[in-house]
């Protein structure tokens, strides 16, 4: 090595060696899953007259499902619901036990698409809302704010009373 390199070259070699060691110390280890796999529809209640958020006592249940998603939860102004992954149609019954009002039903048509998030996080079924129908007993109207259903907390539908 001494015959091969002069002093300047040896200094350069040391700098290069340090650079290579620094580069090799940069970790290439895979990180764990940082992303959520929970795909959900984010809905909010609004007062039609004032266009202000509205808090209600809510019971939420999927049609053809015996389990309640929400059971008489008070002061709900926003909630999450889950679409069926194996069909393109999901319906929920909204009950308002605190007031003397009728139940309403939401009928959501959606297009599903499986997506690989990553090898660490696995997969999830994402959806796009095609259309929403609803009974008009208590609900006045409904607006689709974002038809792409994903893992974010972005508002998807706004329900007016």
């Amino acid at each position, binding site marked *: 090595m001494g015959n*091969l390199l002069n002093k300047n070259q040896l200094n350069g070699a040391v700098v290069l060696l340090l650079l290579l060691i620094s580069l090799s110390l940069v970790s290439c280890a895979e990180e764990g899953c940082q992303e959520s796999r929970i795909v959900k529809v984010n809905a909010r209640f609004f007062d039609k007259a004032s266009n202000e958020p509205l808090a209600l006592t809510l019971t939420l249940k999927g049609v053809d499902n015996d389990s309640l998603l929400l059971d008489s939860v008070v002061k709900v102004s926003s909630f999450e619901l889950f679409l069926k992954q194996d069909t393109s149609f999901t319906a929920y019954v909204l009950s308002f036990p605190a007031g003397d009002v009728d139940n309403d039903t939401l009928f959501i048509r959606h297009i599903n698409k499986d997506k*690989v998030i990553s*090898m660490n996080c696995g*997969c999830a079924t994402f959806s796009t809302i095609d259309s929403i129908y609803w009974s008009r007993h208590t609900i006045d109207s409904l607006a689709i704010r974002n038809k792409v259903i994903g893992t974010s907390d972005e508002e998807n539908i706004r329900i007016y009373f």
Partner: protein
Amino acid sequence: MKRISVFIFSLLVGCIFAFSAQAVRKAKVQLPDTIPFYNGFSIGLDLLPPINTLFGNGFTGSEISLDMDIKHRYFPVIELGGGTFGSEKDGLSFHMNGGFGRIGVNRNIFANNQAKFFGYLGGRYGFASENYDYKGIATTDGYWNTSRITNLMNQTAQTHWVELLAGVRVQIFKQVSLGWIFRYHFRIAQTGSDAGEPYYVPGYGINNTSGVSMNYSVYYSF
């Protein structure tokens, strides 16, 4: 005031001596450039993919490089490769096959080196195209109590990236040398399936926004 004047005068004299000394030093090292413009070319073969093939893991395939020696300082280089990669985690498996190319230049950081020990810094633009499959995509839904397993087949992706690198090359026989390259790369664009990005990109590695990789190559110089 007199002391300040003496100080400024001393400073000026010092600067003049310093510049003069540097000029003499420069005059000493400014020898006529006798290095030819073109000094041949080298073909390299990355030894890591064949080793991976032997042990059946990682990227299996081949990567070759072609570089030209311009005045022992600049080495324009083209790198080409292709192969397959497979990985499995928690029942989800990924498999891809594809090819890649990189183009760039190395800068020898040892001036007038006779290529016995060649250390360099460099940059690359890289491009890869691949076909890939995901198998065993499991999705579950806690509320509706459904679970499914599907596959995502015949997806394609194209990836572009930029690399900064450092390398060494040591002559072991008259025309044969061995070398390491350590690469830091960052992705600049990727197009392809919206059903899931590829887990691995040939010539780049794990498909993160940035990462490191390396080559261990044997070179033959002509």
